[in-house]
């Protein structure tokens, strides 16, 4: 199940029972193709630091992909490239066949830090995308709908500093979703939350995904989270950053976090990441 899948995973993701297209069919597209993308950053002294080298990845519409790997393996850079916040040095990225050159509302992005606009109340924060696209007037009701969707209907007049971390992150999710993106990019969205809020949010994300059938790509540090949520897990390794493995998660949904298959997959992924139980030779002395 794990390890055998090559980088260019052409086989469709294991669509398990829950992933059937339920949302509006017109919004079904959301297929991403990352084709031989490289990206490096220039340091102050002029040296080039490669962040990604020759990455290729196909994500079919409606799939949930997790990208996992140690810090510095370029997973956030990959996400920023897909969002259009960075430009690739080589290779190209396409969403439903169209080249990605700049940020666009069709590709929503949620960061680890909710980054709600502190000067706007929740209602205005969620309405931001509609206003930016000048379609707020005819879609006012959407704001309440999405606040309701994330369980914050009663907090529409609250300011971000009055919210807990989990609430703020759900609001950020609503703010991204209101644009009805075809692709939702999640950059460690639950990384700063406590364990219980985190598990609740994971279920919430699954529910939203089930309702709307949005393609989702999530960067995470957490192997359990990746296996619990995704159809496929992309394991990246640093130096030079590349995709080590794409693991299909053929587990029935809803998934049991402690199930036998789950644990077997977990240890397999950890092994790829070199946490396979053996103690490594220390690279430095404390």
């Amino acid at each position, binding site marked *: 199940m794990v390890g055998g899948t090559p980088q260019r995973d052409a086989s469709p993701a294991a669509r398990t029972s829950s992933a059937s297209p339920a949302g509006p069919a017109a919004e079904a597209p959301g297929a991403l193709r990352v084709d031989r993308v490289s990206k490096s950053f220039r340091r102050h002294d002029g040296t080039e630091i490669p962040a990604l080298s020759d990455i290729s990845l196909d994500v079919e519409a409606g799939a949930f992909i997790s990208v996992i790997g140690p810090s510095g393996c370029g997973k956030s850079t990959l996400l920023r490239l897909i969002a*259009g916040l960075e430009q690739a040095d080589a290779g190209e990225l396409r969403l439903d066949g169209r080249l990605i050159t700049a940020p666009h509302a069709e590709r929503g*992005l949620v960061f680890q830090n909710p980054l709600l606009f502190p*000067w706007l109340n929740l209602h205005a924060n969620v309405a931001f995308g509609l206003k930016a696209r000048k379609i707020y007037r005819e879609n006012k009701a959407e704001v309440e709908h999405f606040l309701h969707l994330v369980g914050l209907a009663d907090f529409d007049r609250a300011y971000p500093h009055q919210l807990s971390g989990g609430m703020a992150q759900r609001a950020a999710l609503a703010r991204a979703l209101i644009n009805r993106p075809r692709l939702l990019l999640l950059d460690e969205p639950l990384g700063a939350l406590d364990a219980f809020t985190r598990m609740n949010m994971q279920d919430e994300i699954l529910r939203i995904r089930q309702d709307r059938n949005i393609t989702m790509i999530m960067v995470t540090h957490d192997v359990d989270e990746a296996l619990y949520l995704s159809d496929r897990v992309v394991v990246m390794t640093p130096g030079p950053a590349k995709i080590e493995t794409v693991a299909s998660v053929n587990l029935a949904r809803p998934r049991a976090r402690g199930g036998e298959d789950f644990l077997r997959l977990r240890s397999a992924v950890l092994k790829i990441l070199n946490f396979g139980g053996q103690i490594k030779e220390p690279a430095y002395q404390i």
Partner: protein
Amino acid sequence: MMRNPRCGGLSRLKREYGQRAVCWWPFLSAVLAVVPELLLPDSPDHPPVNRPYFFYLLTAAAAYFFAAALAAHAHAGFRARLEGKAYFYGASLLFLNILNVVTDKLAALPPIFFPSPDRILSVLAQDWRYLLADCLGSSAVLLFSGFFSGALCGIVTGIAVGFSKKAAYWVNPLIRILGPIPPTAWIPIVLVAFPTTFWGGVFLIALSVWFPTTVMTSSGILNVQNAYFEVSSTLGAGRWFQIFRVGIPASMPFIFIGLFTGTCSSFITLMTAEMVGVKNGIGWYINWQREMLSYANVYAGLIIIAVSFYSLITLLFKLRDHLLVWQKGVIKW
């Protein structure tokens, strides 16, 4: 577990009595000030006034604080408010009391430079129409014309410099060179360059508001977390939308600091402009009265300045609290 009722009751009584006594301090201080005013004869060195204005003031204060102390007994919220300020009010009245004794009663200070409170109040009571309508009115026109044009220019320049590299390239050196020059240093040039002293004054005040507003606005924009712009661009915001809906609101706290600094320096510039060139206004009045050695009028003018500038600053604070309600718990200053 058993509470000693006598002990608790006593300490509570003491505490409550103490609290209520605090509320009577301003009233007592006012009454204390009335005593020397009525009992001691006025010094012959001080010119007499036609009415006992200081006595009126003390009576009004005593009546007001008597009513306030009574109200404090009845109403807990009112008491809390009065308690916090009671010592200050009492001390202020005590200060007036001492001032009155030292000047009007003993003439311990040169009467020409330190007129009695009675005289100052009589200037206010008799000339208030002229002071407010003519002097303060024309100062206000000058101040607001200068302030609003300066603030508007400052915000626009600040935004341009904050967002556009090209604007920063051309304007930043200008700000660095012209900004630190005290606006009043321009007076010799302004007197020649402008058709009337009024427009010269407007220019000087605008200049004094422009500099801090520009600097704070642009640094406010440069301090906005880039992530806010990134998020807004993934939400479909274009460049102008980002400037007006992200950059400006996010730098509002900085803009307000600039406006506060600008307001204070505009007051200075206003006064200087009126004392040097402009031929009316409250600053001009003070200077004119000083030359005539009518120090009572000088103090009356100063009181009017203090009250009106205090009101303006308070208004600006209220506006800030209203606009920056989101800031509570984010930044404090």
